[in-house]
Every structure is written in structure tokens, then in C-alpha cells.
């Protein structure tokens, strides 16, 4: 299934676990260093003034370095811990790798957001990038909040609507 960013609830409602998708459009990237900072912005209500528009968006758990992009483990405390708040603030898709806790599955269900995984195929994924820019927190370098424009970025739905492939 082709997904064009940004997405709304109608798109999310059509997706179920094990669905294979290709994503085209602009997505955020962030990992351990910056995601807790975004959560703080959400709590303080300062996202919009920093140019961070989360509604209908996706966050790919990766750094953006000269060595390319590739999913880091989403079950790291700082990353998984950001998923509920980001979902509540409008992020519809979290993309990474590794299993997540039941509490996170529940939070995703509550805010109608989903978790997708993608193989750590850096050479392949990096070839899908059409443009990139730093959105916020440039002091974090490769771990800053980036926006990348991707074309036919491959992923598979791992958690959706309270169901997880890791419970199978």
C-alpha cells in the first residue's frame, strides 16, 4: 500500500499489522537525544513557535549522518517513552525496529497512531531520500530533529489498533 504524507485517521484506520507499505513525502527523524526535548516542547506548548508541526506526521527513529539513515532500537527508554506524548500531539506513525511494551501498544491505540518497522538497510533507505533539513535543536548534530523527504520508503506495520506482531 502506498502512503502519502501527511496522513489522517482514515488512512490509519485502513492499516493493520503485517501490512507492507511504501511511504512517500516528508517525515521527521529523531532518537534518544531529541525526542525527550520534543516531548518537553509539547508539554510547554512551544512546538509551533519552534516550527515543529506534528499533526498527521511520522517520526523515524534514526540519526541523519553522512553515513546515512537506519532504524535504531525503538525500545530504548528515551525513544519508547516519547511515543505516547508524540501520538497525543498528532504524530500518526512511529517508525523504528524492535518490540515495544504493552503500555505503548495501548497508548498507540488510544491516540489512533501506529508503529512500523523497517529493515536496517542503510544503503537502500538512504537512496530513498530526496531532501533533508534540520527542523529544531541543531546542537544535537546528527541527532537533531530533521525532516527528510522520502520516496517509496519501505516499512511493515508492527503495532496497530491494540494488536502487536510481537504478541503473536
Amino acid at each position: 500500500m502506498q502512503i502519502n504524507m501527511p496522513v489522517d485517521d482514515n488512512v490509519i484506520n485502513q492499516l493493520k499489522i503485517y501490512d507492507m507499505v511504501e511511504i512517500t513525502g516528508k517525515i521527521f527523524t529523531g532518537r534518544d537525544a531529541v525526542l525527550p526535548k520534543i516531548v518537553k516542547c509539547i508539554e510547554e506548548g512551544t512546538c509551533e513557535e519552534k516550527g515543529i508541526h506534528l499533526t498527521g506526521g511520522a517520526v523515524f527513529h534514526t540519526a541523519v549522518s553522512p553515513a546515512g539513515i537506519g532504524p535504531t532500537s525503538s525500545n530504548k527508554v528515551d525513544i519508547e517513552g516519547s511515543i505516547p506524548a508524540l501520538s497525543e500531539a498528532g504524530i500518526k506513525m512511529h517508525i523504528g525496529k524492535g518490540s515495544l511494551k504493552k503500555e505503548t501498544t495501548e497508548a498507540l491505540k488510544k491516540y489512533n497512531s501506529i508503529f512500523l518497522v523497517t529493515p536496517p538497510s542503510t544503503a537502500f533507505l538512504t537512496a530513498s531520500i530526496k531532501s533533508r533539513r534540520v527542523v529544531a535543536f541543531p546542537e544535537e548534530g546528527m541527532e537533531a530533529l530533521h525532516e527528510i523527504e522520502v520516496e517509496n520508503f519501505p516499512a511493515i506495520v508492527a503495532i496497530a489498533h491494540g494488536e502487536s506482531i510481537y504478541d503473536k
Partner: protein
Amino acid sequence: MITRKEIVDKTAETLLKASTVFRPDQLEAYKRAAESEDSEHAKWVLNNIIKNAEIAEDKVFPLCDDTGIPHVLVEVGEDAVVPAGFFSAVEEGVAEGLRKLPGRPMAVKGNDYERISQSAGLSEDSSDLAMAPMQIRRISGKKIRLTLMMYGGGPEIRGKTLRVFHKHSVDTVVNEMIEWAVEGAKLLGCLPCILSFGIGRSNLEAASLSMEAMAKGNFTVQSEMEKKITDEVNKAGYGALGLGGKTTALATFVKVGPQRASGIRVVSMRLGCCFDPRRAEWEFEA
């Protein structure tokens, strides 16, 4: 006579090859695994990894964005003369290779406290990433063989070095190794895993033997012990990328060292990710 330039250039080339190229036995293991899978999702992941390897080799681009910490094994022939400055030339070659790759700029700056807490930031220069201390072995002949491996971070989270009470049974030790691997594989995102084990007398020796297992392991030549571990781990059914299927582990490499008269064996496990071992070698005629 080996020149310094030759050592630097060949080390840099070896680092690039280790970081961007699947070896034939590695590729064959992936193709066999993809063919054996019934699940379309598992096939999709395994074929994606193969496609990634083709692009990486073609474009000389990193297989994985976690380009890893360089680890070097140097095997010195009994009749070889190691030229003055050999080790610093290898270090220079590693730095040159990281610049060319380019490696992920992940060297942590600062004093002891700042490096531990990562509070003084990162270097922007890929080549500032120091390699791990070299391991040295003796071999016969006149060659100096350099094996370069790139250690990604995920396996370091799931790896383990610990004593095992063997109770005078190989099965006791092997079953413990399988248990560690299954436990770690459940949380490793980048499945299938490639397992490397060293069994020795001390924590350092076991870890060093695990590195040697990784340096020498061949995906298509598996011992009875290695095959048993792979097969047992695959029964867990986590599958490629955790999506289920037959391939949780692609292969296992084991190196058993000398043992001491004791009730324990020290086992070191690297639960390697799907690109492990990122490895290449070069032989210098000394």
C-alpha cells in the same frame, strides 16, 4: 619490504570493504534463508537485506548507518618481520578509511566524566573514532594478516560475558549459551542475528576468543555445536526483523580456547546483528 603507505592504504581499503561488502558465504546464507522461508514477510526482510548489500557494494556506501567501532586482529607470521611503525600505520589507515566511508561521526569528546555522560558533545570528524585495542595472534609463515571488523552498537546492548557452571557437561554450557541467545534475540531489532561465542578462562580471554570466532567464522561451514545453537535459537520463531519465520539466527561461530581446572567456563557472546560480521582481511607479504 612493506612501506608505511602500503599499510595505511590497504588498511583503509580493508575498512571500506568490511563496511560495504557482503562476503560470498554471507550472501549465500541469506539467499538460502530467503528461499527456505514460507512467510512472505520474512522473505521480504531477507531479500531487502540482500538488496541493501547489492546497493552498498555498488555505491561503496555503508551497509548500516551505525558504521561501528573498528576492531582489528593482527596475525603475525613466525618468519615475518614487522616493520617499525606498523601499528601506528594501521591506526592511520583506520582513520583514513573512516574518512572515506564516511563513518558515522560518533566519537564522544571530553574528559573521563564528560565522555561517560556524553555531556561535551560529539566530534564532527568521523576519523576521530578511536579503534579498539588490537588483538594479536601468531601464525606460521612470512605473512602479516590483518582482519578488520566493524562492531555496531545494538549487539553491545544484547551481548554478555559471564561464568557458566558446567557441571562437567558440554550440554550444560551449550544450553546456557542458547538461553542467552534466545533472550537477547527477542529484543534485538536487527534479526536475523549472527552469534559469536568465545569460551575461555577469563572474561578478557573469552571476549578475545569471541572476536576470533567472528574473524574466522564461515556461514557455510558450521560445526555440530554451531549448527545446534543456530537450530535451537531458530525454534524461538522470532524471525527476520521480529516478524516471525524460520530465520531468527543465520549462523553461529564458536571458538573454544584452553580451559582451567575449575567448575566454571567463561562464555562471551556477541549477539551480532544482521550485517555481522562486517569483516574484511588483507595479507601483507613481510
